[in-house]
């Protein structure tokens, strides 16, 4: 049994079949990005074990394929087992061993990157301090209550759990959350008193001033899905009411986008836009057992034990043009645990590496751009956590060293044979 398994996993035939599947998957997954969107296609084809049904040039084809994880893992096992089977500790083969080990490291590194890496963003205006980063894609329904005078307790429910009909409970919440509707993507509209509106879906909070309707899921890289849910909060013995929670109200980026569209597209005055936005962002609360719980559907947050304060955002352009010359964020890094308190400059190609994360300069509204938009200069940092970020470098060095070593062994052997001849 072990013999057969060993033979199967170490066979070159398996390598060829897997490589062939790999080529097909890369082709299909790349073509599908046109129909399914970059993020979706990457996730469905390369970050899954199996692919059920593929999309080619607008047509759905109901066939199955091994996914990226399966092919990668089997290739890795194949390589490791073959390595063990054919391993000979001789100086003659040291280059080949090194090359194989390098390829194994590359595969393992890619797999762990896929599994454990995380990309988030920090958005702040000059003078603001953040000790958390937010997801660009995922949302969470957060219930926030005061824990003591200085801290608050957050119960964060990932938006993926908000499916229609779900009942969500947690020991820290004295009530259950019933999901009556959940729309992955939605559009808001202000319930202007002058317009003929249907009655609001609920008379609590946000729904009094805004209507939301489902929108088609977006697959483009330039837009994002902004979810909305209708939830009922029910304590044992009584319903506390039904509320609408929406990414449009809890995501600062979307709130700002909406404010701008009120001013530029709907030709509202700044004051009126600010007043309407005030209604959108008014906190929604429920009081249970003398405790107030504020709740909001917001981008999923990752808190860190340190904080960054944006001191200055610099955005300079080449004179007379809009072509950016330099994006630069000067931040203060404070970590109470270690006592660190220092200023750091983050700019293009010069990220800050700290606490296992890398902070890249991502976007910026500063300089002339901010002045024209009437906003305080602000900056967005891309925060990447990738525990295996060094493996591609190490893997490539090992492969290169292995190939050079093997080549040199052959070269030296060849030259010395010639000399002898």
């Amino acid at each position, binding site marked *: 049994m072990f013999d057969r398994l060993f033979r199967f996993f170490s066979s070159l035939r398996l390598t060829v079949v897997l490589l062939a599947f790999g080529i097909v998957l890369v082709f299909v997954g790349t073509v599908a990005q046109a129909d399914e969107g970059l993020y979706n296609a990457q996730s469905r084809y390369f970050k899954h074990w199996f692919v059920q049904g593929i999309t080619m040039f607008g047509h759905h084809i109901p066939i199955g394929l091994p996914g990226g994880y399966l092919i990668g893992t089997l290739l890795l096992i194949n390589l490791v087992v073959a390595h063990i089977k054919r391993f000979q500790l001789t100086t003659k083969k040291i280059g080949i061993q090194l090359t194989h080990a390098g390829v194994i490291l590359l595969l393992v590194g890619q797999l762990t990157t896929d599994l454990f890496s995380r990309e988030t963003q920090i958005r702040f205006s000059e003078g603001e301090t953040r000790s958390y980063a937010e997801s660009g894609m995922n949302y969470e329904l957060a219930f926030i209550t005061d824990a003591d005078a200085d801290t608050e307790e957050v119960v964060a429910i990932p938006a993926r759990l908000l499916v229609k009909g779900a009942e969500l409970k947690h020991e820290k919440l004295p009530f259950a959350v019933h999901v009556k509707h959940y729309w992955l993507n939605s559009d808001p509209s202000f319930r202007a008193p002058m317009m003929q509106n249907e009655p609001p879906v609920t008379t609590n909070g946000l729904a009094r001033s805004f209507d939301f309707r489902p929108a088609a899921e977006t697959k483009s890289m330039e837009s994002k899905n902004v979810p909305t849910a209708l939830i009922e909060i029910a*304590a044992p013995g009584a319903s506390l009411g039904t509320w609408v929670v929406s990414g449009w109200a809890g995501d600062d980026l979307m709130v700002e986008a909406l404010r701008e569209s009120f001013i530029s597209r709907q030709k509202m005055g700044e004051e009126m836009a600010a007043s309407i936005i005030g209604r959108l962002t008014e906190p929604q609360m429920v009081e249970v*057992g003398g405790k107030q719980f504020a709740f909001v559907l917001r981008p999923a947050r990752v808190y860190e034990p340190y904080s960054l304060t944006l001191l200055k955002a610099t955005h300079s352009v080449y004179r007379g043009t809009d072509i950016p010359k330099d994006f630069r964020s000067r931040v203060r890094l404070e970590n109470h645990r270690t006592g660190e308190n220092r200023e750091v400059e983050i700019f293009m190609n010069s990220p800050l590496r700290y606490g296992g994360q890398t902070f890249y300069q991502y976007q910026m509204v500063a300089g002339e751009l901010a002045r024209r938009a009437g906003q305080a200069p602000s900056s967005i940092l891309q925060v990447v956590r990738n525990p295996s970020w060094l493996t591609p470098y190490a893997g490539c060095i090992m492969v290169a060293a292995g190939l050079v070593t093997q080549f040199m062994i052959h070269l030296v052997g060849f030259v010395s044979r010639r000399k002898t001849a």
Partner: protein
Amino acid sequence: MIKRLLTKIGAARCAGLFLLAVLLASCRREEITVYRVPKEKEPARVDTQPQIEWQTPPGWEEQAPSKMSLANFSVPGDAGRQAQLSVMTFPGEGASELSLVNIVRENAGLPPVSDEELAKLVETVNVGPASAKLVDLTGAMKASSNAAPNRILVAVFARGGTTWFFKLAGDAGVVTAQKQAFIGFLNSVTFVEPRGTRVRAAHFASTNAKRVPIAPDGDAGVSDNPLDKPSWDAPAGWREVPRTQMLLAKFLISSSDGKAEVTVSTFPGDAGGVLANVNRWRVQQLGLNAASESDLSQLMSSLDVPGGKAMLVDMSGRNQKTGEKSRLISVIVPREGQTWFYKLMGDPAVAGREKTAFIKFVQSVRYPNV
């Protein structure tokens, strides 16, 4: 040979273990997380809420504002009759007089009017420096409301990017008697320009000596401690058991023909409304169809309790947890901004037999601060 075999077994096992580890790692499920973080500082907001000042007519009583209104007044009349004045704003202006008047009519359950009819219905009044349309809605009645106001006067106008509504609604006699006082009140209004400073200011200010307490975030009238426990006389045979979170009390009733339980809870405000709660019991606990607003009047009956009226509902279905026949008798007591729920649920025979004792129990309750 043995060494070689061990190597082989090791390799296959290692490969299997690795595959398992990777599979497990990739099957991480997203879960609800709990964490504590330092409180976020309240974001400074530009205060764009309009502010007004006024002179309160004699006899009127200022009340705390609510989320929907900037100011509220109780306007008393003879023999306990009264009316209510509320000041509301909506962002935006530019709607025609006709559409503003029709919005008010629609809210009062009246049909829209045409331009010609408009002139007969409205008169012009001054709200401070602004000119407003005063709409008189006699006979207005909301079908869904129990205490239907039968006369409404609304002054409506647009100013500073905001549409303002001053609404006096209530008993026809009181509204008629107070019309001049209402117009005097409207004339006394002055507008305070938004300061535009980054403060979280009160939304209104009164020139009266007696200042209305400003409720945090507009949540007015909610008891500071809703768990102030009342006292009651529980019938013999009811066994009080430790209450769970959110319940004020829980009793178990056991007998040879089955068992039932009684729970007492209270929530601020209307706790989502009577219909929502009745339907939650019907659908989630008894497996019945949801009732409509019109069904509600047939389902509910009135019950006298100390200090007012309560609503009683009696329904039978199947307990959604056990699948067995079940009867639910509940009394809803709205009281001083709180809603109290008393629920008897259990085997039909036990619930039926205990109904009278249950009602007596509810009537025996002595609420805090009474």
